[in-house]
């Protein structure tokens, strides 16, 4: 009887299903708004704002962005380069730093561990970092996007824990066959740690994709800017859009600044939204990997 009572759909359930449904709308609507605005004509926006469906359906804003002077694909290309190369460098150096910790004969584990953990609690703060990066001459180079955060203590520790869980007998068999350490890392540990690499590659790429503060501080040369800097200029600053796009041309094509802004939002988040449902389980596992340590 108790069981029957538990399975019945009562007023309590209606309430919770309703609240969760409304929350889903709350999470999705801002993006939906961008989509419908970007697909409406400028005249329709001036008449009255579309709230549920596009009004005067048109691709004009997208067509204009793709053919205009502002070469959004150049920023996109830079972002992809920073995301892919930066993540590859980071994963390589991180696994190289983590591997020696699991080798018995490696001297200096304790020292290295302390050396890394200190950086998790103390840092220099914004100004010393800013001055250092500038003094090293990294401003307006691709290196500032690839190198400074490549090895972090926290990630090394997670890699080390993961490598430690790989049976030592696998490595020892390889040592006896004469394999060196680099080979054991590349041909034994990396292949068996695929889930680890998949999760961190994903998080690394998303992190680099979304990074805006580093390029905002250090990159002023147009041809090196990633998409986020372009976004900041065209979405967040007041005059940025007019610097990138021709206002006269927009008026001629019946496109309002909101059309352009919302279309830019959609163009930038489309890749993430397209892959997101498929990779969601890795994303969700990321937070759990993080919490093992905590």
């Amino acid at each position, binding site marked *: 009887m108790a069981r029957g009572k*538990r399975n019945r759909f009562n007023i*309590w*359930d209606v309430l*919770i*299903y309703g609240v*969760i*449904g409304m*929350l*889903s709308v709350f*999470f999705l609507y*801002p993006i939906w*708004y*961008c989509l419908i*605005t970007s697909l409406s004509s400028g005249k329709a*926006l001036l008449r009255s704002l579309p*709230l549920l469906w596009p009004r005067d359906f048109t691709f004009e804003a997208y067509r204009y962005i793709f053919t205009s002077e502002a070469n959004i694909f150049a920023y996109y290309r830079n972002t992809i380069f920073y995301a892919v190369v930066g993540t590859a460098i980071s994963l390589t*150096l991180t696994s*190289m*730093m983590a591997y020696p910790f699991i080798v018995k004969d*490696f001297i*200096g584990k304790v020292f*290295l561990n302390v*050396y890394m953990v200190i*950086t998790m*609690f*103390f840092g*220099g*703060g*914004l*100004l*010393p970092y*800013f*001055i*250092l990066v500038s003094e*090293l001459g990294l401003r307006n180079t691709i290196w500032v996007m690839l*190198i*400074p955060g490549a*090895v972090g*203590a926290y990630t090394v520790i997670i890699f080390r824990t993961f490598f430690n869980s790989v049976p030592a007998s696998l490595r020892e068999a390889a040592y006896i066959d004469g394999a060196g*350490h*680099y080979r054991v890392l590349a041909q034994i540990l990396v292949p068996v740690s695929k889930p680890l690499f998949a999760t961190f590659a994903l998080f690394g790429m998303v992190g680099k*994709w*979304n*990074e*805006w503060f580093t390029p905002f501080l250090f990159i002023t040369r147009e041809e090196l800017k990633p998409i986020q800097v372009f*976004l*900041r200029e065209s*979405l*967040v600053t007041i005059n940025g859009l007019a610097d990138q796009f021709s206002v006269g041309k927009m008026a001629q094509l019946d496109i*309002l600044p*909101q059309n352009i802004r919302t279309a830019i*939002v959609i163009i930038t*988040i489309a890749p*993430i*939204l397209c892959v*997101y449902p498929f990779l*969601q389980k890795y994303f*969700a596992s990321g937070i*759990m990997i993080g919490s093992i340590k*905590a």
Partner: protein
Amino acid sequence: MVNLQTRGLSRNTKRHRLNTNLQRNWPLYTMVLPGFVLILIFSYIPMYGIVMAFQNFKPGLGFFHSPWAQPWYGHFARMFRDVYFNRIMQNTLLLGVYSLLWSFPAPILLALMFNEIKHKGYKRVSQTISYMPYFLSTVIVIGIMKLLFATEGPIISVASDLGIEMENLFMEPKAFRSLYIGSAIWTGVGYNSIIYLAAISGINPELYEAAIIDGGNRLQQVWYITIPSIMPTVIILLIFAVSGIVGNDYQKILLMYNPATYKTADVIGTYVYRMGISGDAGTGGTGILNQSYAAAVGLFQSVFSFVLLVLTNQFARRVGETSLW
């Protein structure tokens, strides 16, 4: 005599062993080297760079050769006299406390609600939707918000249809904290609920069965079983959250604020940025740049938040028997 000989011998074998170890294992040291050097350069040199807070830093001389401030605590003394100091302290603390009060319980509530949903498909889809904003960049989130709250945006237009007069909220000092916290909840609440859901899924189902037999209703099950069971997770995350009170997301604020909202939006982090990097420290662009002073204010903030971490941890250990270390 005999004793001495054996000791010498063992020292020799030790050295010998060390040599063969190095011969065999030198690649390990080359593996560690790049990471070691990167951490040295990008973490340890900036830590040394804190000395600039005690210097009169000159860009041409660097942290190693700049002259010392006279007196050495000069920049700190100036900080307490700064007309903006009260404002940035108050804004930092209030924003931190309000964020904690709203953003901390939100994912716990959401996780409890998700847990009450028995329909698998509905649960999976709504959870997937709730994590999604987490993967959008701060620039996009603020960009979308500015579009939603713009004068020609949907929120003001719907409000005016309903007869409510509204200004652009991004120009309104009173609205800043709500916008900051609201956007943080929009982006983070779903993703942060995952950790609580994991804690909930670890609860022994027999506890619920026993509660049902005792006649406990669903609200009582949540109150007497679910919440106490996830308390250790809640406390650990609360320690982090409390120690983060002083460390607001100043990068997000840089995207959100403007001189019209400095009154509530300007925090330590943004002040440090303007004072030390962009050079428009006052309300207008006065072009003052004082990197040593900015570093001193930044150091003050770091020390403050470190002390807060230690204190909350101490408190949690005494009261809740849970701690980070």
